[in-house]
């Protein structure tokens, strides 16, 4: 028999039982649809994350920590403020410049001279209340040098421009924060005044008398300070935030930041740093180093580590991230496989039914010269055609599900100022793989019925009514 005849025979035989073929194929469509949409979602998440990291140039970043900071950032935050103070002061007395190098402006300048380093800046984030047009929202403020703002953040601006200098009393605000304040048109806020109110931890309020006052609920150990800025730009999404994917909604230059009284949130220890006594080396808790290319990550890391600091680069964690994605894909695959297994049982059922119904026909086939191989191939192709149709329409279903979910998700997220994002990705290998997988699964499901068809005794079959 010719290949074209097998295909034609398969379609015409399946067309004889349209409803049953439709229902069986529909089972496969559901299974493949689930598989495709889940894989596409997994791929979409993966693609979005890596693309965003690339876009934000996070793979070109190295974070630098003081050596003690790494130890301190181990999970021991259960200390009471007074206990923490004790620890800090004890460490402070032991500290010697040679043994515990400090992340200060001198170091930042030294780092800036290393080959491949585009810029280095201290990672300073602090909480603040943002007041604009009589509305107030809590937000994280990030200090970003003007040059980094111009090179990294300018690509992500929905309106306005980056601030011109490190001393400008200007800031960039995110579109999502504006959405939170019910401000739809980003352009209208450019040039407007915004008030940032910072909280500052006041260690003087930790005296036994003050603690007693706190316990009574009369007073909290924070003071509030307000500063006015001019909005110069609106970032359309999460801005350049160094290599830590923490969302910041407000970016200010270092100049005004230095004059602000605030709590830095880079580390829990910063919370208490205000208690450090005179002469105690403080320094920054983290410095972000932006490189011109990912190829400089290792040499720059090495150089900084040689100076006695700890470093972290997101690119080092990429393998871990990829491994996590593999686990996610496997989980989604397992869920989709349940649907595929049910669909396979449907195929087996349909094919066995078909053989029982066409028992005499198989006898006729053999009487007129069909070999066992021909009979096997005829039924095998029928299984394959179910798989092919199921794969094609399943792919279409998976795509349609992805489009619908994407539209619905974006509709709701747009209200919160999140820009349009494709949460589903349909790479070519997923499309081809889904159809191929559907055919393979269907053929596997067709093995038993096919063998059964080939075993039909023509003498018995021809007597069959």
């Amino acid at each position, binding site marked *: 028999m*010719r290949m074209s005849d097998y295909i034609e025979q398969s379609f015409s035989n399946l067309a004889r039982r349209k409803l049953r073929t439709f229902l069986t194929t529909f089972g496969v469509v559901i299974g493949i649809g689930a598989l495709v949409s889940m894989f596409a979602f997994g791929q979409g998440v993966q693609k979005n994350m890596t693309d965003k990291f690339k876009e934000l140039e996070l793979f070109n970043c190295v974070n630098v920590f003081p050596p003690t900071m790494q130890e301190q950032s181990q999970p021991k935050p259960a200390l009471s403020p007074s206990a923490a103070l004790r620890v800090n002061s004890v460490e402070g007395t032991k500290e010697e410049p040679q043994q515990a190098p400090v992340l200060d402006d001198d170091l930042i300048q030294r780092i800036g001279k290393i080959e491949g380093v585009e810029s280095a800046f201290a990672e300073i984030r602090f909480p603040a209340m943002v007041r604009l047009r009589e509305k107030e929202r809590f937000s994280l403020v990030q200090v970003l040098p003007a040059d980094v703002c111009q090179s990294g953040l300018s690509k992500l601006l929905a309106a306005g421009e980056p601030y011109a200098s490190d001393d400008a009393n200007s800031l960039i605000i995110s579109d999502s924060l504006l959405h939170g304040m019910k401000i739809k048109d980003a352009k209208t806020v450019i040039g407007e005044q915004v008030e940032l109110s910072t909280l500052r931890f006041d260690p003087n309020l930790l005296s036994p008398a003050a603690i007693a006052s706190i316990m009574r609920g009369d007073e909290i150990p924070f003071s509030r300070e307000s500063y006015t800025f001019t909005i110069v730009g609106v970032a359309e999404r999460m801005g350049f935030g160094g290599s830590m994917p923490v969302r910041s909604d407000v970016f200010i230059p270092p100049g005004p930041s230095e004059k602000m009284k605030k709590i830095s949130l880079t580390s829990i220890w910063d919370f208490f740093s205000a208690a450090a006594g005179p002469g105690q080396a403080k320094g920054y808790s983290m410095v972000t180093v932006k490189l011109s290319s990912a190829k400089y990550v290792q040499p720059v890391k090495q150089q900084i580590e040689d100076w006695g600091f700890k470093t972290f680069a997101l690119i080092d964690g990429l393998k871990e991230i990829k491994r996590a994605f593999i686990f996610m894909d496997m989980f989604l695959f397992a869920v989709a496989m349940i649907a595929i297994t049910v669909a396979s049982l449907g195929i087996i059922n349909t094919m066995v039914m078909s053989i029982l119904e066409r028992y*005499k026909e198989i006898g006729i*086939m053999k009487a*007129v010269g069909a*070999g*066992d191989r021909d009979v096997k191939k005829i039924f095998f192709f029928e299984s394959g055609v179910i798989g092919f149709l199921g794969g094609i329409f399943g792919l279409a279903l998976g795509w349609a599900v992805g489009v619908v979910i994407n539209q619905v998700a974006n509709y709701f997220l747009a209200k919160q100022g999140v820009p349009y994002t494709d949460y589903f990705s349909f790479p070519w290998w997923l499309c081809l793989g889904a159809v191929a997988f559907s055919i393979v699964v269907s053929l596997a499901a067709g093995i038993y019925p096919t063998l059964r068809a080939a075993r039909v005794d023509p003498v018995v079959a021809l007597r069959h009514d």
Partner: protein
Amino acid sequence: MNCASFVQTEGLTKVYSSGKIQLCALKNVNLTLAEGKFLGVTGPSGSGKSTLVNLLGGLDTPSSGRIKVQGRDICELNKEELAIYRRYQVGMIFQSFNLIPSYTALENVAFPLLFAGVAKRERNQRAAEMLTRVGLYPRKDHRPAELSGGEQQRAAIARALVNQPKILLADEPTGNLDSITAKEIVKTLADLNRNQGVTVIMISHEELLLQEFAHEVIRLRDGEIVDREKLR
């Protein structure tokens, strides 16, 4: 090859087993048939007629003995070789016609050509020629349910002959037909035998038809040949 032994069986025996019960359908049947002959096979129900035709047609394999067709022992063929034998060497027609109900007459006749790897256009052309030969071309697009018994059997004859086999095996082809149609069908087989040299082996209960058209008649009882009659 000796024309006198175009089809030959030697000690042909078929035993069916069902659990501990064994049923001997054919016992030591020795038969020789020359090329181009019309052999009638008759006998009561259960005498082994259909078993003999199934064995000669390669649908079944004997328990012992040999079947030689054109000098080749078909008992030594494997399953695929037997399929090729059925495809090209023999054509079979049955009492219940055994046409595929969902196919038209033309598609039914063209069906064996599918397994011979013939292209669709040629399949249809050759099937149309065969239907013309049996006088059924005008009914080519009708399905079996829309044809009379005689027409169905003629379509079955056309299907049996479409691969131009040398032997035509007919298992009670007139069993479901009225006497006039039955005679027409047997006459069609006799014409094919006479005009195209096709060797015909036909099972029938109707002695008169066999007497009129067959060259030789054998009578079976309990799986054994009990009588041979040369008619012409």
